[in-house]
């Protein structure tokens, strides 16, 4: 256990000194702050005098517009946090183990009385802690910026941040595991393609669930099988809640016979359930197993 702690501690020190991660963090922090301030300036300057071309009283009020801006901010924020979580996952995944194995540092480390299992656990703990720390700090900043808008979706944002970290951990583990077998750039490319393919499968599955892909049984069976084969992303209630609130602002102006808000948001992924979370845990365990197997059989 001491070995894993030592590996973890010094890997964290190394990660904290990598310029690439600091650059990602700085860009993320400036991006989130800038996004919030720009939207706030925009609403303050234009919302009060906005006209939507309809008869007087038919458009959203200034308060509704402010709410729309906040929803837009949170929606963009989720995208930005997800993007930076992925970038950080790639940056950590490509370097945390690969450099030790390739540079020869592993020769000195593995000749000490530390097991490969303890080494792998230490590396993994450091990578996950670094990921949580960086995304956590960005989420904290996002939460502070949300005070500009009066708040209201904080819980959704926290859950979405958690889901973002969980999804980034899966991708990071995949890249870590691949980088123990192959060149780290090739590992990142494979991870990127896999992540993209998984995204397509999840989107298609959502369309299937909301009834947009007809009732072809072969298609249903195929997509359902694929969905449970790929490590699909965890989702919080935030994306659906944001779209719901946006629709509700305009609901009063909808013509008779228009689809209900529930129908309209059904194509947006709903929050992940217990089975999805168990599946995520299983995927993480499998990825760790692959990583450990690669480190264990590695001759340095």
């Amino acid at each position, binding site marked *: 256990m*001491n*070995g894993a*702690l*030592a*590996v973890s*501690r*010094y*890997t964290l*020190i*190394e990660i904290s*000194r*990598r310029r690439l991660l600091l650059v990602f963090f700085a860009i993320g922090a400036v991006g989130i702050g800038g996004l919030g301030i720009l939207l706030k300036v925009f609403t303050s300057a234009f919302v009060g005098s906005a006209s939507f071309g309809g008869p007087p009283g038919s458009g959203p009020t200034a308060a509704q517009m402010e709410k729309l801006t906040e929803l837009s901010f949170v929606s963009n924020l989720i995208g930005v946090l997800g993007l930076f979580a992925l970038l950080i996952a790639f940056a950590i995944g490509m370097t945390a183990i690969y*450099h*030790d194995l390739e*540079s*020869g*540092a592993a*020769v*000195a*480390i*593995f*000749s*000490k*009385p*530390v*097991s490969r299992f303890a080494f792998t656990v230490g590396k993994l703990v450091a990578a996950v802690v670094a990921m949580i720390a960086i995304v956590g700090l960005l989420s904290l900043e996002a939460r502070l910026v949300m005070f500009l808008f009066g708040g209201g979706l904080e819980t959704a944002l926290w859950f979405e941040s958690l889901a973002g970290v969980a999804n980034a951990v899966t991708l990071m583990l995949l890249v870590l595991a691949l980088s123990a077998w192959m060149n780290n750039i090739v590992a990142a490319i494979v991870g990127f393609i896999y992540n993209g393919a998984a995204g397509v499968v999840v989107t298609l599955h959502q369309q299937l669930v909301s009834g947009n892909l007809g009732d072809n049984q072969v298609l249903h069976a195929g997509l359902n099988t694929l969905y449970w084969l790929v490590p699909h992303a965890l989702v919080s209630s935030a994306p659906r809640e944001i779209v719901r609130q946006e629709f509700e602002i305009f609901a009063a102006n909808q013509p008779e016979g228009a689809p209900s808000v529930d129908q309209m948001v059904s194509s947006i992924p709903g929050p992940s359930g217990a089975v999805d979370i168990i599946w995520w845990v299983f995927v993480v365990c499998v990825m760790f197993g692959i990583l450990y197997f690669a480190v264990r059989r590695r*001759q*340095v």
Partner: protein
Amino acid sequence: MATVVSVQNLRKRYRRRDPWAVDGVTFELEAGQAFGLLGPNGAGKTSVVKMIAGLLRPDGGSILLFGSDPGNPAARAELGFAPEDPDFPKFLRAPEVLDYFASLLGLDDEERKRRIPETLAFAGLDRERRQVRQYSKGMKQRLGIAQAILGRPKLLILDEPTADLDPLGRRDVRALIERLKESGVAILLNSHLLSEVERVCDNVAILARGRVLKEGTMSDVVPEGSTLEEVFVQLIEANQPQRDHLPSFISERQ
């Protein structure tokens, strides 16, 4: 004397179609002995020591390190290994690297506080504040030797320990080997510097293409009136195809 390492009929190859990198190497090393492993480039010396350190898996034969399999972490608790061309986590500084390895060795805080500054001073790195990525090859080699002796090993493996060192560094390593031998530490030395090996080693094995050509005490291997270098050159030349020593264009007039 207690046997520290026992190597029996050791074999290793890196790919199925490759020739054996190590082919039937056998030797034993006892406490307080210094054993020199010699051979031309590609003879299999580094493969042998890496298998003893548990870094490579043998394809045949057996190794007992303090009576256990080197793959067992506990067997490596009393091993110090200074690799050829050493490297370390590149964003750490020398004291951090030693503290990292002290943690892996299970040294307590008191021992760390005592040993790390002394080891850094021995390696000439006590005033060095830069990260390892900014070190020269010689500085990395010094740090490699420092981390190898940090745990007060009972077996010290030195793989080309002086290749990148200046003359003062070489003198320090020679003094270190002699001091450790006196205190009962077994030394396994891989080196191309035959005069150095002749000076510090009790036993020697000469390898070529993975096989042991000659092995024994220094007096067995080197007859009186001869030097280790002469014996080495004769043995190697007799066991590998003759080569033209210089490319023909070198002798052409400009």
